């Protein structure tokens, strides 16, 4: 019985089921909660009436229809994803041997996600209850809504990750099978596999935001925050767990395979080979998809919240419409990505880039036209939404510059222009990332040159390139923020923040393309592995002379294209984190200004400016918060990098053990891949708890101990340092990786040379930076932002440092108790990250690979 229950709770389906049921319960609660009283609320001006906008005279029929159309577009995006998924599944699945390898990868990936859901599921339930129980406002519908939306956000995020990974593990086999016939077929299948995940992200993100707005209207603040937090928290776990898994498997496989046994990549004799391939899926597919999904969610949440507080409902509907256009742009442009029989990696890459450009043009033309038609602020609108006045010079739309109203009184193109800034930012960030990490450019070439003089010079040069790329990336982001700020010069900070949030919307307009490009990387990588392990050279040659060599070349070319596209998208992921965090920061100040999330609609500009003025580094408590915030990304990264090292050491020991069997070395016996997969799965799940808790607890701990202004400083420090560190780690790691590839392609001696050995060292150092710690900082920034916002009500009431003179003594006591619990949890997480296991690197003496 106990075993059956255990099996039941270990099942991913069961976890999904109980989380969905739980979400349903909370949503029902939002409608039918006993405390809900629309009439009473209406009198107070805050009552909640679900779907009120359908009967609200301020919303035109066109606007309501447009919202329904957005729902339709979101569903169209999902249907397009389903159509592409059918195409992928219908493709040829190759030989039995290829299927056997792909099945091992798929089973490993499924086992990982099942373990992930088993561990994260209960935590999600606990957080839901905490979110519900700690709501400090008066409206019970919001209390139920934020908890329910949190669950839905988490479920959507996990769905994106899970489906993305499932598709990737199906697509890799089919790409390997298609490569035996033609380049175009293989390329198209690989890209479309990624597009399924991309469109799922688009569709679910848009669906969630739109439904919440339809239900809650202008009172969607709490539900939107819950929705964003759900997606973000799941993404953090997917990123951290996937990052640890993928690099532990990769480093473990390389150390024993390439370094100790001198066997090549993807060699079936290496027990870690399957885990390495599984890692590509759980890290780069599931992790990245969930990460971008949460960026997609958080930017729309930030834009909608700030839109409501600045431009009224038009400020909310416009970003939703832009997203809808983005989905259409992605559908059109991803379908144009094709390759012919005679294509090469260069022409294929050109096709992918052309798709991105087509999507960009469609989106820009679409939202500029939409802005021209929709962003009209006439006297009637301003009368019903008086806060809008502050967004115009002297409160008069007629005084807006011609660059913004094109000479038409009442027209305000600034939201569309800031979207355009976002699109340009995405393109420029792609270019900057590409410049610092691509083999064609000087930074990577300088690393390859440095390899000629040894390991240390490669590492030194890598640091220099990484630091330089950080400056370049930050300057681009700062430039985009400045451009958005310029658009709203002279308006209150809330409007400026809306401009920044709209830049985030523009930046992720082509999420479908971005994720397609990213997921294509691991799919092509896995397909290459399946080709290596599963192709039968002699039989293929017998059937068609030259076919084996051609197919291997196609897979190698696709792998090269995938590496490039994957690297390019990392810039967007990091940039979007900063944009979302900066815009959410304004919401944070707004809540402090009015004391509660429920009152945010009543905030005056004077209140906002008064609170914003207190967030200064001249205030020591803010500065202390900033110092702590700046230190957290380092602590978080240290924990993740240690986790990779510990997990990798266990894998090394297991592989060494298996290599002692001469039949495995001779290829007569298959290694036990499942043992390594299990080690990776278990250690990744175990190791993600500490960093995950750190992300949730530290902002609250700072808040309870030092008060809300210190949290403001904390967020500023954390955003700045987190961004710098994330860019440095991603780009330095990417540059080291590609310097190795450049040498392997035949410079400075190629494979096996001394320069190659130095390049391998650089790549190994960069691996946990670029694929574990660096990418995990994106969701970390947003989780900490969200936690700060969601716990702000509690922090304002119970913090230890800044209690009003008339506050009950119990408030301070509660704050002290909360801080003690927080310190205990953080201390445990840090201790956990430092512990050495019995099978750690330090205890491997005597485990010589040759020992018998």
């Amino acid at each position: 019985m106990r075993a059956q229950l255990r099996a039941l709770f270990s099942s991913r389906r069961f976890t999904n089921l109980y989380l969905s049921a739980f979400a349903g319960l909370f949503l029902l609660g939002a409608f039918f909660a006993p405390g809900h009283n629309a009439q009473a609320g209406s009198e107070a001006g805050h009552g909640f009436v679900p779907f009120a906008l359908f009967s609200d005279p301020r919303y035109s029929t066109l606007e309501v229809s447009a919202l329904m159309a957005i729902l339709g577009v979101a569903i169209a995006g999902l249907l397009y994803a389903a159509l592409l998924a059918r195409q992928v599944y219908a493709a040829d699945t190759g030989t039995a041997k290829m299927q056997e390898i792909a099945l091992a990868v798929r089973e490993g990936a499924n086992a990982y996600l099942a373990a992930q859901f088993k561990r994260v599921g209960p935590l999600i339930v606990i957080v839901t209850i905490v979110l519900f129980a700690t709501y400090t406002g008066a409206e019970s519908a919001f209390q139920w809504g934020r908890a329910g939306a949190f669950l839905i956000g988490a479920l959507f995020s996990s769905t994106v990750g899970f489906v993305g990974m499932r598709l990737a593990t199906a697509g890799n086999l089919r790409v390997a099978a298609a490569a035996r016939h033609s380049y175009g077929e293989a390329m198209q299948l690989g890209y479309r596999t990624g597009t399924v995940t991309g469109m799922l992200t688009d569709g679910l993100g848009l669906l969630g935001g739109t439904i919440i707005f339809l239900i809650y209207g202008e009172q969607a603040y709490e539900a939107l925050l819950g929705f964003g937090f759900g997606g973000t928290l799941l993404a953090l776990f997917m990123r951290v767990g996937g990052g640890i898994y993928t690099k532990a498997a990769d480093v473990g496989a390389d150390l024993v395979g390439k370094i100790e046994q001198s066997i090549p990549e993807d060699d079936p004799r290496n027990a870690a080979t399957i885990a390495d391939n599984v890692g590509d899926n759980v890290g780069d597919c599931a992790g990245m998809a969930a990460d971008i999904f949460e960026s997609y969610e958080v930017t729309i949440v930030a834009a909608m919240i700030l839109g409501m507080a600045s431009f009224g409902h038009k400020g909310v509907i416009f970003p939703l419409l832009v997203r809808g256009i983005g989905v259409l742009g992605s559908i059109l442009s991803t379908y144009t990505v094709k390759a012919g029989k005679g294509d090469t990696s260069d022409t294929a890459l050109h096709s992918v880039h052309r798709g991105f450009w087509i999507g960009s043009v469609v989106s820009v033309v679409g939202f500029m036209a939409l802005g021209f038609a929709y962003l009209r602020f006439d006297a009637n609108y301003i009368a019903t939404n008086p806060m809008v006045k502050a967004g115009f010079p002297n409160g008069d739309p007629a005084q807006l510059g011609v660059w913004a109203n094109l000479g038409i009184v009442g027209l305000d193109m600034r939201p569309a222009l800031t979207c355009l800034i976002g699109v340009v930012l995405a393109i420029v960030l792609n270019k900057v990332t590409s410049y610092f990490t691509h083999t064609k450019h000087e930074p990577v070439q300088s690393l390859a040159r440095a390899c000629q003089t040894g390991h240390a010079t490669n590492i030194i040069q890598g640091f220099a390139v990484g630091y330089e790329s950080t400056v370049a990336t930050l300057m681009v982001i700062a430039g985009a923020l400045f451009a958005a700020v310029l658009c709203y010069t002279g308006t209150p900070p809330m409007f400026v923040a809306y401009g920044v949030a709209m830049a985030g919307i523009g930046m992720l307009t082509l999420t479908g393309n971005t994720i397609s490009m990213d997921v294509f990387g691991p799919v092509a990588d896995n397909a290459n592995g399946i080709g290596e392990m599963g192709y039968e050279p002699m039989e293929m040659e017998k059937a068609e002379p030259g076919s084996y060599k051609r197919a291997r070349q196609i897979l190698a070319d696709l792998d090269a294209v995938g590496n490039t596209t994957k690297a390019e998208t990392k810039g967007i992921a990091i940039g979007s984190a900063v944009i979302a965090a900066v815009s959410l920061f304004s919401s944070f100040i707004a809540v402090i200004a009015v004391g509660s999330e429920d009152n945010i609609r009543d905030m005056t500009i004077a209140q906002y400016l008064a609170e914003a003025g207190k967030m200064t580094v001249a205030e020591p408590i803010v500065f202390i918060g900033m110092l702590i915030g700046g230190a957290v990304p380092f602590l978080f990264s240290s924990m993740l990098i240690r986790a990779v090292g510990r997990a990798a050491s266990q894998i090394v020991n297991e592989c060494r053990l298996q290599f002692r069997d001469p039949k495995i070395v001779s290829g007569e016996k298959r290694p036990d891949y499942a043992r390594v997969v299990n080690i990776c799965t278990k250690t990744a799940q175990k190791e993600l708890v500490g960093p995950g808790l750190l992300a949730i607890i530290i902002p609250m701990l700072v808040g309870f101990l030092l008060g809300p202004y210190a949290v403001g400083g904390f967020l500023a420090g954390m955003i700045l340092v987190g961004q710098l560190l994330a860019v440095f780690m991603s780009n330095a790691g990417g540059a080291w990786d590609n310097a190795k590839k450049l040498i392997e392609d035949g410079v400075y001696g190629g494979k096996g040379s001394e320069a190659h050995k130095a390049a391998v060292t650089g790549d190994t150092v960069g691996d946990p930076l670029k694929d574990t710690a660096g990418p995990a900082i994106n969701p970390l920034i947003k989780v900490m932002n969200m936690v700060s916002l969601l716990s702000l009500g509690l922090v304002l009431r119970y913090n230890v440092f800044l209690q009003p003179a008339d506050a009950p003594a119990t408030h301070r006591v509660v704050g002290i108790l909360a801080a003690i619990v927080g310190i205990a949890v953080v201390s445990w997480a840090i201790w956990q990250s430092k512990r050495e296991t019995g099978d750690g690197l330090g205890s491997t003496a005597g485990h010589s690979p040759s020992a018998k």
Partner: protein
Amino acid sequence: MDTHLYLSCFRSEALIASHLDPESFGRYMAVGTHKLTRGAYLFFEVTKNLKTSFFKLSDLAERCKPHSDGRPRSSKYVSVYRVLEHVELNELGTLYLVSADGRTLGIDAKPYDTSKEEHGVNLYQQLCPLVPLIVSSQSPAQFGKFITNSQNAISVPRMLFADQLLDREEDGSLSGHLPYAERAHIEQCIRELADPEGKQTKTVSRNPNIMAFFRTIRRGFFVADPSGIKHYPFPSRESLEIEHAKWWRSVQFG
């Protein structure tokens, strides 16, 4: 149990009796023993009826017995000194090339057509009994004759050497795709050979660091002595990539 006789010629010279077939023996020498051979390993299968009396082979059957539990004997050393010089060219069978991870490729000797030799500089890696890396303007046959000529001040009775790729750019510098350890020195030695009054062979390194060795092989391996030269041609790139794909992939790194 059949007993094979193997001439281990790189990295150590020895005559070894074994019950293992060549593939298993190569794997055993590369990865199956505490005394690992790091990097490339080469050995010949030689006839059991060696003409020489230098080795004590009469009691070989007695010495090379299966283990008490019936397992085959992996290696029984017959000699570890001056082996190649006592094995005639016609007694050398297939040459086996073993990757660091234990994959074995066997290549057979073919008649060497000296008329097809090209003029120019060659890079020879001597493998047995000595191991210097040499640049030479001599063809393999000329070089073999030269190095085994007892009339010279310095010679060896018989020599195994490999002819390595020496790809150069238009400006004469070595191209980047091969792992030459002493790049600048090789280029310097090549320049010195250009002097018609100068030497025909020049030592690049006495103890070269051979990396990704099999990836650098050009025409193949040669065994030369005063009686002639035996050529073991290296398979074509296409054959390596298709027929010996696993071996070829394994030797890319080490």
